[in-house]
C-alpha cells in the first residue's frame, strides 16, 4: 500500500519504528495532492513549505530522543474556517480573501504543539452554510468516489481530502451535520463531539450554540486519537466545558455485549432512500450479532428539527456575520460614499447567495414583531427535541440511524433548490440541537457511492460512541475501501 493510503495509526507506527521519516510521509501526501487535486479540488491553500518544515522538526525531535505525540508527523488538512496565523483563512468567502488571522485557533495551537503536519486549508460551503460544498465562493470540490457527485458539505473539502489520500486526516466543523453528512458521502469517519468538548476559539463562528470542531478520519481509531488531541477546557471559549479528556483510543475494546441501542422510527421515514435504509438495517443486524440489543423507539419531535434549525442557525448567523463590514479586515467596497454604503456594498459584494439568504432569514426572525413567534418559539421546540433524547437515553446507551437520507447527489442537482438541499441534513440536525455527540461511519455502498451509519450518544459519552462504532467497523471491510482516482 502507498503511504497515502494508510491510516494515521499505521503511519504513526512506521514513524515510531523508524521505518519512514516524517518528511517522507509528508512528501508522499504532497505528491498525492499534486496528482489528484485537479480532479478533486479539495484545497483552498496548500501549505507545502510549512508542512515540510513541521515534518523536519518532528524528525529532529525524534532523533533527539524526545517522546512524541501519536499525531506527530502525520499530515492533516484544516477546514478553512479555523484561524491559522499567517496562513490565509477565507471560510471560502470572497469577503475574507487575503485575510491573515493574527492568532491561531486553540485546536491549531494544540496540533502545532503536538507536532502535527498541516498540509493546508480545505474547501467548505461559504461560512459553513451548505450541504454540498457547492456554496463555496471559489470552486466546488468533487467526490473522490464519483467526480460528478458532490462530496457533501459543509466540510466537503475535509472529507474529500481524506477519502482521496490528500491528507491522513482532517478537522471539520459541524453545525447541522457538516462533518457527518460529507463523511457519509465520502465513505470516511466523521465525529461531532459533545457541544463544549472542543474549544471554538478561533473557529470562525456560524451559529455559536451549535458549532463544534471534530475529526474526519479513515477509521474509528484515528478519530479517537485525534479527538483526544483536540479536546479540552479552554478559558478563551466561554462555552468550553471543564471536564477531563480521556484517552479515547482506550475505549476501543470491541466489546459491545449488552449495549442497548435505540432505532428511531422517524429517522427511516424522512425521504430515506431504500438502499440507504437497507444498508443501515443490515448494520444494526450486525450490531445485534455482536451482542448489542436493538429496539425501535420514537423521537416524536424529530420532524420539527429542520424548521427549528432554520430559524435558530440563521438567527445566530445574522448576528455573527454582522462583523463583516469592511472596516477592520476583509473585503472593503471601492464604491462607498458614506458609512452605510460601506457596510451595504461591502457585504453585497463579498457574500454569496446562500449566505445572504440565511442572513435575511435570521434578521427577519429576530426583528421586532416576529422575535416571539419565530425565535423564542424555536428555542422552546429545541427544548422538546432535547427532551426526546434525554428520555431515550434513560433506557438506551446509544441511538442509531442513517446519517443522510440519500447518497451523494450529482453536482448541480440541488444547487437551485435550497429546500431540497437542506433536506439532506434532516437526520443530523437533531444532535446539534441537543448538543450530544454523534459519529458517521461507512456501512456500505449504493451504485458505488458510500452510505453512512450514524450513532448518537448522551452528552460526553464519546467513549460509548467510539466503542460501538469500532466494534461494527472491525467486523466489516468498508473502511478499507479506497476510491479509484
Amino acid at each position, binding site marked *: 500500500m502507498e503511504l497515502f493510503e494508510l491510516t494515521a495509526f499505521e503511519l504513526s507506527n512506521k514513524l515510531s519504528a523508524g521505518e519512514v521519516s516524517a518528511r517522507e510521509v509528508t512528501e508522499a501526501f504532497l505528491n498525492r495532492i499534486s496528482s489528484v487535486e485537479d480532479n478533486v479540488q479539495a484545497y483552498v491553500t496548500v501549505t507545502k513549505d510549512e508542512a515540510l518544515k513541521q515534518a523536519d522538526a518532528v524528525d529532529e525531535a525524534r532523533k533527539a530522543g524526545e517522546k512524541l505525540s501519536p499525531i506527530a508527523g502525520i499530515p492533516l488538512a484544516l477546514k478553512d474556517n479555523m484561524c491559522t496565523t499567517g496562513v490565509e483563512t477565507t471560510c471560502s468567502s470572497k469577503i475574507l480573501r487575503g485575510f491573515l488571522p493574527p492568532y491561531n485557533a486553540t485546536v491549531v495551537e494544540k496540533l502545532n504543539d503536538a507536532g502535527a503536519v498541516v498540509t493546508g486549508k480545505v474547501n467548505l460551503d461559504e461560512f459553513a452554510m451548505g450541504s454540498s460544498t457547492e456554496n463555496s465562493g471559489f470552486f466546488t470540490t468533487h467526490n473522490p468516489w464519483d467526480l460528478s457527485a458532490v462530496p457533501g458539505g459543509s466540510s466537503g473539502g475535509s472529507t474529500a481530502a481524506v477519502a482521496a489520500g490528500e491528507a491522513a486526516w482532517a478537522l471539520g466543523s459541524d453545525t447541522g451535520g457538516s462533518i457527518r453528512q460529507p463523511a457519509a458521502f465520502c465513505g470516511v469517519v466523521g465525529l461531532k463531539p459533545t457541544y463544549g468538548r472542543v474549544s471554538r476559539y478561533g473557529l470562525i463562528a456560524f451559529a455559536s450554540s451549535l458549532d463544534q470542531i471534530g475529526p474526519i478520519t479513515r477509521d474509528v481509531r484515528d478519530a479517537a486519537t485525534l479527538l483526544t488531541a483536540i479536546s479540552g477546557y479552554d478559558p478563551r471559549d466561554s462555552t468550553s466545558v471543564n471536564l477531563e479528556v480521556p484517552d479515547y483510543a482506550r475505549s476501543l475494546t470491541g466489546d459491545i455485549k449488552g449495549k442497548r441501542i435505540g432505532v428511531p422510527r422517524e429517522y427511516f421515514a424522512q425521504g430515506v432512500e431504500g438502499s440507504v435504509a437497507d444498508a443501515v438495517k443490515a448494520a444494526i443486524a450486525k450490531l445485534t450479532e455482536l451482542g448489542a440489543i436493538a429496539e425501535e423507539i420514537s423521537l416524536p419531535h424529530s420532524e420539527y428539527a429542520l424548521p427549528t434549525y432554520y430559524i435558530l442557525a440563521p438567527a445566530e448567523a445574522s448576528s455573527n456575520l454582522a462583523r463583516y463590514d469592511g472596516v477592520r479586515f476583509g473585503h472593503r467596497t471601492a464604491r462607498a460614499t458614506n458609512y452605510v454604503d460601506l457596510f451595504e456594498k461591502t457585504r453585497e459584494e463579498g457574500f454569496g*447567495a446562500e449566505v445572504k439568504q440565511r442572513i435575511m432569514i435570521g434578521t427577519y426572525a429576530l426583528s421586532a414583531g416576529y422575535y416571539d413567534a419565530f425565535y423564542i418559539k424555536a428555542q*422552546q421546540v429545541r427544548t422538546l427535541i432535547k427532551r426526546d433524547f434525554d428520555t431515550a437515553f434513560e433506557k438506551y446507551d446509544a441511538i442509531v440511524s442513517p446519517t443522510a437520507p440519500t447518497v451523494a447527489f450529482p453536482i448541480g442537482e440541488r444547487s437551485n433548490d435550497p429546500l431540497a438541499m437542506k433536506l439532506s441534513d434532516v437526520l443530523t440536525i437533531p444532535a446539534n440541537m441537543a448538543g450530544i455527540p454523534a459519529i458517521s461511519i461507512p456501512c456500505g455502498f449504493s451504485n458505488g457511492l458510500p452510505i453512512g451509519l450514524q450513532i448518537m450518544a448522551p452528552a460526553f459519552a464519546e467513549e460509548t460512541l467510539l466503542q460501538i462504532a469500532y466494534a461494527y467497523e472491525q467486523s466489516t471491510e468498508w473502511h478499507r475501501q479506497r476510491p479509484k482516482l
Partner: protein
Amino acid sequence: MGGITTIIMSSQLSLEEISKVGQLARLQLTDDEKVALTGHLNDILQQFGRLQELDTTGVPPTSHSLPLQNVFRDDVAAASLPRDAATLNAPEKRDGNFIVPQIMED
C-alpha cells in the same frame, strides 16, 4: 408570556418587506436578488408555520445545550492582541487607527 402566541403571519413576504429586512441586515440587494430571495424565503417561512402546531406552554427556551451560565474571568489585566496584529488586515489604516469614510456630517 404563556400559551401559543398568535400572530398574523405574512405567508408571503412582499418586496417592500424584503427591502426593509435588507436594510436591517446591511445588504444592498439588487432587484433580481430581491425577487429570488422573496421566493426562497417564502418557502422556508412555510416550514416555520408548522412550529405553531406545537403546544409549548410552560416549556422553557433552550439557547444552548449546556448548563453553563455567567462564565466570567477574574478582573485581572492580561496581555491582549497587539495593535500591529489587530490592524494587520485593515483595508486602510494610519497611525494604528482604521480609516473609514466620514461618519458625521460637518
